[in-house]
């Protein structure tokens, strides 16, 4: 039972309370479940590992031990961050397929303001300034960068999949 409790505390996204376990362990009382949870925590915390089970807000929760916070923070910085926001992804798609393109043209296609998304993409080095359009006001032209090609494993922009190919994939779905 202790190993199961440990596993449950691990997968739970909030502190595990004894009463929540009554459906998992029918026949156990709230008191006996609480004792079992405490025993699980004590046994887990005895070993010199990286995590600990702590009693928080009336429940039991697994966390990393505070002494490793610096290294964990360091690690989290290196991992790929969560997906691009939808706005950034759409903006990147417009730049990729319609380059060279101005901010006003991106706005016209997306129908939404895109300047902060474009800013993010410039910061992430996926989009670069490639020139100025020879029209009134000489607006800046944007295009994808070399990092863009590397990130998506493309040899050249000609390798981008086309809308026709997308339609072909989706077409069989009636």
């Amino acid at each position, binding site marked *: 039972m202790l190993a199961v409790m440990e*596993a449950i505390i*691990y*997968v*739970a*996204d909030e502190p595990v309370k004894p009463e929540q376990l009554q459906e998992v362990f029918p026949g156990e009382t709230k008191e006996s479940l609480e004792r079992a949870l405490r025993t699980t925590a004590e046994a887990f915390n005895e070993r010199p590992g990286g995590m600990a089970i702590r009693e928080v807000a009336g429940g039991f929760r*697994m966390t990393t031990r505070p002494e490793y916070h610096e290294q*964990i*923070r360091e690690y*989290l*910085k*290196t*991992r*790929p*961050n*969560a*997906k*691009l926001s*939808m706005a950034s*992804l*759409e903006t*990147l*798609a*417009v730049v*990729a*397929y*319609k380059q060279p393109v101005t901010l006003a*043209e991106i706005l*016209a*296609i*997306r*129908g939404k303001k895109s300047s902060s998304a474009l800013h993010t993409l410039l910061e*992430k*080095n*996926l989009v670069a300034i490639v020139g100025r359009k020879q029209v009134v006001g000489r607006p800046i032209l944007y295009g994808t960068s070399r990092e863009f090609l590397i*990130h*998506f*494993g*493309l040899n050249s922009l000609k390798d*981008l*999949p086309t*809308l026709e*190919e*997308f339609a072909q994939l989706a077409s069989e779905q*009636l």
Partner: protein
Amino acid sequence: MGNDQDLSPDAGETFEATGVTIRLEAFEGPLDLLLHLIKREEIDIWNIPIAHITRQYLEYIQIMKDLNINLAAEWLMMASTLIYIKSRMLVPQEQKGESGDEEAEDPRHELVYQLLEHQKFKNAAEMLHTREEVEGAVWNKPPADALEDAGEIVDVSLFDLLRAFHEVVRRFEEQQILEVNQEEITVEQMIQDIRKRLFVHDAILFSALFAESRSKRRMIVTFLALLELVRLHEVRLRQKRTFEEIHILKTKETA
């Protein structure tokens, strides 16, 4: 057997024809049906009684047709392949060997190879299924709230990018159709509209542009706008052959 597009009604019905009973099941494709027949009748794959199998295959197809089930083209292609092999089998041996002294190839060979290949991948799929079941039994902790969002690498696939672009274009088109539906549109507005579309698409079909015009006035406006764009050298019209679709293309200057 799970599948994307169910071909059959409730599995388990049986039918009888020419003395054979086939349990009516959903087969994903012709190769699946053939494999089923071969296994059920314990047929030697290297010596398939092609006339017998062809008859059963055609019966299955007929029943599907009777039940108004739409069969994809590959079902009919397999039917004609089977009939072709059957006819080749009827040609006497001596005639086949005439041109060369090497042994003539068994007309069934290609099909056998295809069936074995298919069975091989069905087995691989079963293995993946088992692995998926096993993996489904382990759990991960819920993702932690990101401490920092400063990562420089993004986690997006090429397919995500394409799908995003598809979504943008789809939304754009819906928007254009909404705007264009205002019947009081002027030639100048229509010129702008065509310019915008040509920015998103490299070419527009002449017929598609006119299909949106519900009134005679709109058609005239569209036509005048197009003429003006041609005069300004912003677009050119191309038709590969008479009576074929006319494409409206951007000229170099506007690209």
